[in-house]
């Protein structure tokens, strides 16, 4: 059993009146791919944002790499975020910069490397996601799948110890979904890093997940390997995995 990279303990988080997470507890295993599943609006993306300090819980504790995020100084938070890559749902590339400039940004801002060194790393990183020839193109010129891969490249260019993927395959065709799933697995192996993936795509999850956690009504209701989850006696988990309209999940 590997050690935990991050833990979320009894976290409650509200947006206004709406309770998003309620006494939620989750362990993220080190050097493994943990997938978060659940209904839309269940709070999966919020968990990703808790892990890199973009959201602060109203109650409970989040610790990453053995460090409690509560009361962490702004400087330490910046240092933490440099160790955690974040691939956004819609890539969130800066549309005034080329793909190469987008990927280079974390290095330009946080390292003292020369332009030549940065260019070499950017090219290598883009090559690892199959976008070596897209370096000088603008985000608006790329397809959805290419944008996601460019987002992956920006997230991993600093060799982070953890990468957070927010719905990496949503809205893409099966072939690109397959390519992205393989890319996530390959990047995790290459970086020897931890990955947390929020997804609705069960085929993709079955193909890449070491662990799966299911979120329902603000709390984790099931956690384990893919096989353990498939065998879960919880009717909510079974209804979700089967995509059935009939069951305890209110429509």
């Amino acid at each position: 059993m590997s050690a935990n990279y991050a833990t979320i303990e009894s976290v409650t988080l509200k947006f206004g009146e709406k309770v998003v997470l309620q006494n939620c507890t989750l362990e993220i295993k080190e050097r493994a791919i943990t997938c978060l599943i659940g209904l839309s609006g269940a709070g999966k993306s919020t968990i990703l944002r808790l892990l890199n300090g973009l959201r602060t819980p109203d109650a409970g504790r989040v610790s990453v790499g053995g460090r409690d995020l509560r009361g962490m100084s702004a400087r330490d938070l910046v240092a933490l975020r440099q160790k955690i890559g974040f691939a956004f749902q819609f890539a969130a590339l800066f549309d005034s910069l080329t793909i190469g400039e987008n990927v280079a940004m974390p290095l330009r801002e946080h390292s003292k490397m020369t332009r030549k060194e940065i260019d070499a790393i950017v090219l290598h990183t883009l090559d690892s996601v199959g976008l070596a020839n897209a370096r000088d193109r603008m985000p608006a010129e790329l397809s959805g799948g290419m944008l996601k891969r460019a987002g992956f490249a920006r997230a991993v260019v600093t060799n982070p110890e953890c990468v957070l993927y927010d719905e990496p395959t949503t809205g893409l065709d099966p072939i690109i979904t397959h390519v992205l799933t393989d890319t996530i697995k390959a990047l995790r192996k290459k970086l020897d890093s931890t990955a947390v993936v929020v997804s609705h795509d069960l085929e993709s999850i079955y193909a890449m997940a070491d662990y799966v956690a299911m979120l329902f009504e603000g709390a984790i209701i099931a956690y384990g390997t893919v096989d353990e989850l498939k065998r879960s006696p919880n009717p909510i988990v079974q209804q979700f995995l089967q995509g059935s309209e009939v069951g305890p999940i209110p429509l």
Partner: protein
Amino acid sequence: MRMLDDVGRGTLGLLQYAGGVASLSAEAGSFVGRLRIRVGETFAQAYFLGVQSTAIVLLTSLFTGMVISLESANQAKSYGVSSLVGGAVAYVSSRELGPMLTAVVVAGRAGAAIAAEIGSMVVTEQIEALEALGLSPVQMLVVPRLLALVIMLPLLTIFADIIAILGGMYLAHNTAQISYSEFIESAREYSAFGDYVKGMLKAVVFGGLIAVICSYQGFGVRGGAAGVGKATTGAVVTSIILIFMTNFLLSLVFYGTSGTR
């Protein structure tokens, strides 16, 4: 009871808005104070927000100077005080209309662009992406725009003053046959150098105000494209109202209640 509820809610909203703007100003000011400035981006914004606003500022000022002259030149001549026309145009332009109209025009053009750009970045998660990369959106986006407007608005105001006076002079000459030399002499006599300096100081304040208000509105965008439109409109309307209010207060401070300080 419901009215009290609405008043309370409105007051809280106003205080929250004021607090948010003050907090954003303080954070941007802290980056400027520590010289954490992105020089290249500041020049780029000065070009986009300032230089590219020159044409509309000059056009607005030209017609403003001309209309002041149009309204006053013939009247003044019929009363035998044509020597006051140049002074009137220069006095009004340097003290009030130059800085204020320049700020209003820039708020409409550049302020809307700031709110829309930042708002679109919020909607497309680019602001969160900056934070996730360990970068400050205030340092990256607000500070360059703030400095650009604080530098460019006074420069635009100088051009606006000059073009308003030239427009007024041209019209006074052609409609009331007031000579150029008489107009210039009058302008020099009735407007002091200090008036132009105070006008530029007003422009500095207006520049800061437009940058902070419009950035704040942009950061507050919720709900996609409709939210961006709403924030952009709100940014321009709020900026213009605050420009008028601040102009009044600054005039009171600079010139006192007699208007001659």
